[in-house]
């Protein structure tokens, strides 16, 4: 398949474009030159990259919800509500799951059924089906930047349509939108397809239009050890930068232990900078913190507790933006009111913490060191596996379990590592699978797990994992079956 971590030539890119734009009739609506003109005329305050850069500069944490419904008019109402009532700083458009699997026919049925039912039958906005006309309508109806958020292994047409519509940010990546979101899509193909998306963003960038790209940090959202998600984020950041992307937001999903979360965010930013510098990429780097991405408690008051703790951690970690959950999380896609409630609780906490910094304690410093060392082990091995090529190395690494994402659905993921919480509630490795992590790091890890098991008078076993998966939704961080 000719995968290499190398910037695509314009010829190759334009060659591929022809094919991409034929995937669904709305592809016709994309005219790159016209799109460049359109984007150039957009007001600054609708540019995602610029808004993030400003926030980073001002040491502010921006607030972004998730939201998307089937029909254009309803989606506009929804986004306006989140902007005006919810006070969002940045708007999303969550794309429906059929689009994510490129099943545009099913989207079409979903649109029709939604019209009939009078409510959205799709779990997101089918942007490809609505085409450039529909997507521009959305952009023009709001006052702040818009981003596509999805989970699409092959997002080429989606990216073409949304960028041409003035949506100046695109979430995703060849790993993060494949392994947690797909069953059989190969990494060769998804990385290639995301090189296309990155190349597209890079193309706009070359025309002087800032486009933001955001690899999806939380992966499966479920007990992902920070070294895994940081390693993947850095790889996807590097792959994007190679294709000419200049504005990158790297993300992380809250694990719940403050020390670990603050350290993970620090480690991510520092280490990404180091790699960008090493490879000579000139990138404007920002960060995103995702409020707890695993199973939520059903009780709304408890959900508010989880949301607020996420907000506090985002602020203390100094994230450039935070992605907000709602009190409906455990049950279903939130109403706009519930979504707004999540945003208001989050805003309140962000504002309470606006003036506060958490000074680096020695625990945080040690954890940063630990995470960076683990990530280094992983990235060294990935590069090795690819004989120096990051893209090739990534494919091989997943094959050999050098990279491995817990609980992922993909058959191309080894699925050998198991995470569990340690005695302080930090996420560690119950099993490292084939991860090439050095022995001293493993010993440190195992000791912390052993401490927890002893405290709970039980063995270090798979039951810890099961208990930890259910823990937050049952009202605690560390699953302790003994506590009932």
């Amino acid at each position, binding site marked *: 398949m000719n995968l290499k971590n190398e910037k695509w030539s314009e010829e190759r890119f334009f060659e591929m474009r022809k094919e991409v734009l034929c995937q669904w009739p709305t592809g016709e609506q994309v005219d790159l030159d016209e799109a460049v003109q359109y984007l150039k005329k957009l007001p600054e305050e609708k540019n995602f990259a610029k808004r993030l850069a400003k926030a980073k500069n001002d040491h502010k944490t921006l607030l972004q919800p998730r939201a998307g419904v089937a029909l254009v008019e309803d989606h506009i109402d929804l986004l306006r509500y989140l902007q005006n009532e919810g006070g969002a700083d940045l708007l999303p458009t969550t794309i429906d*799951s*059929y689009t*994510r*699997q490129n*099943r545009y026919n*099913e989207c079409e*049925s*979903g649109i029709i*059924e939604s019209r009939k039912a009078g*409510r*959205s*039958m*799709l*779990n997101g906005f089918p942007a490809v089906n609505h085409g450039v006309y529909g997507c521009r309508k959305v952009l023009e109806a709001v006052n702040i930047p818009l981003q596509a958020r999805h*989970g699409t292994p092959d997002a080429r047409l989606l990216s073409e349509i949304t960028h041409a519509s003035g949506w100046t940010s695109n979430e995703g990546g060849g790993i993060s939108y494949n392994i*947690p*979101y*797909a*069953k*059989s899509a190969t990494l060769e193909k998804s990385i290639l397809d995301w090189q296309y998306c990155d190349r597209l963003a890079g193309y706009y960038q070359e025309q002087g239009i800032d486009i933001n790209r955001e690899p999806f940090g939380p992966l*499966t959202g*479920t007990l992902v050890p920070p070294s895994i998600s940081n390693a993947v984020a850095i790889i996807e950041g590097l792959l994007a930068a190679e294709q000419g992307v200049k504005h990158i937001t790297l993300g992380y999903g809250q694990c719940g232990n403050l020390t670990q979360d603050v350290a993970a965010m620090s480690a991510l930013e520092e280490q990404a900078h180091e790699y960008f510098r090493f490879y000579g990429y000139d990138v404007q780097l920002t960060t995103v913190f995702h409020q707890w991405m*695993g*199973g939520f408690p*059903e009780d709304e008051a408890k959900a508010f507790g989880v949301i607020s703790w996420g907000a506090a951690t985002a602020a203390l970690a100094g994230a450039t933006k935070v992605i907000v959950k709602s009190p*409906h999380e*455990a*049950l*279903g*896609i*939130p*109403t706009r009111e*519930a979504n707004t409630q999540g945003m208001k609780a989050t805003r309140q906490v962000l504002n309470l913490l606006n003036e506060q910094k958490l000074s680096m304690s020695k625990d945080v410093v040690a954890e940063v060191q630990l995470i960076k060392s683990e990530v280094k082990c992983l990235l060294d091995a990935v590069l090795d596996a690819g004989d120096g090529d990051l893209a090739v190395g990534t494919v091989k690494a997943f094959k050999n379990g050098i990279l491995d994402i817990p*609980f*992922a*659905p993909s058959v191309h993921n080894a699925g050998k590592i198991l995470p569990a919480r340690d005695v302080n509630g930090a996420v560690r490795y119950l099993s490292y699978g084939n991860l090439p992590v050095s022995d001293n790091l493993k010993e440190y890890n195992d000791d912390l797990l052993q401490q927890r098991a002893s405290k709970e008078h039980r063995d270090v076993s*798979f039951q810890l994992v*099961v208990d930890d*998966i259910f823990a937050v*939704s049952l009202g605690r961080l560390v699953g302790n079956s003994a506590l009932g």
Partner: protein
Amino acid sequence: MNAVLVMGVIGADCHSVGNKILDHAFSEAGFKVVNIGVLSSQEDFINAAIETGADAMLVSSLYGHGEMDCRGLKDKCVESGIEDILLYVGGNLVVGKQDWEDVKRRFFEMGFDRVYPPGTHPDTAIDDLTRDLRLNIVLKGGRTDGVYSAY
């Protein structure tokens, strides 16, 4: 002889955590589990059930499209000659927080034998399976004890 369960996540749904947990719980409970994983079509479910002679089909849908994805599954089972298979469905079945009784009714009407709300503990399903499988045998005129057991 242990009861055979076909389980998976239907449609374009990729939520794999609950699927892995259910697999683990059902297997621990002694069932023979055939897990077809996420992103499975109605045809995948039916083929797996026929191939393995399954006693029950446990469909998960978390992502909200459950209503669209499950429509017609019962008919296809009938057409394929497995009309007696137990049909369970569970997860976050519809888009948004809707009245649960109403949701349940809609899925019963689609031909499911049991419909589970979000947050259902695996043990609930295990209890129900143990009871329903026995019952199914009775209805089919088979032996009432010891034939199917989860343990």
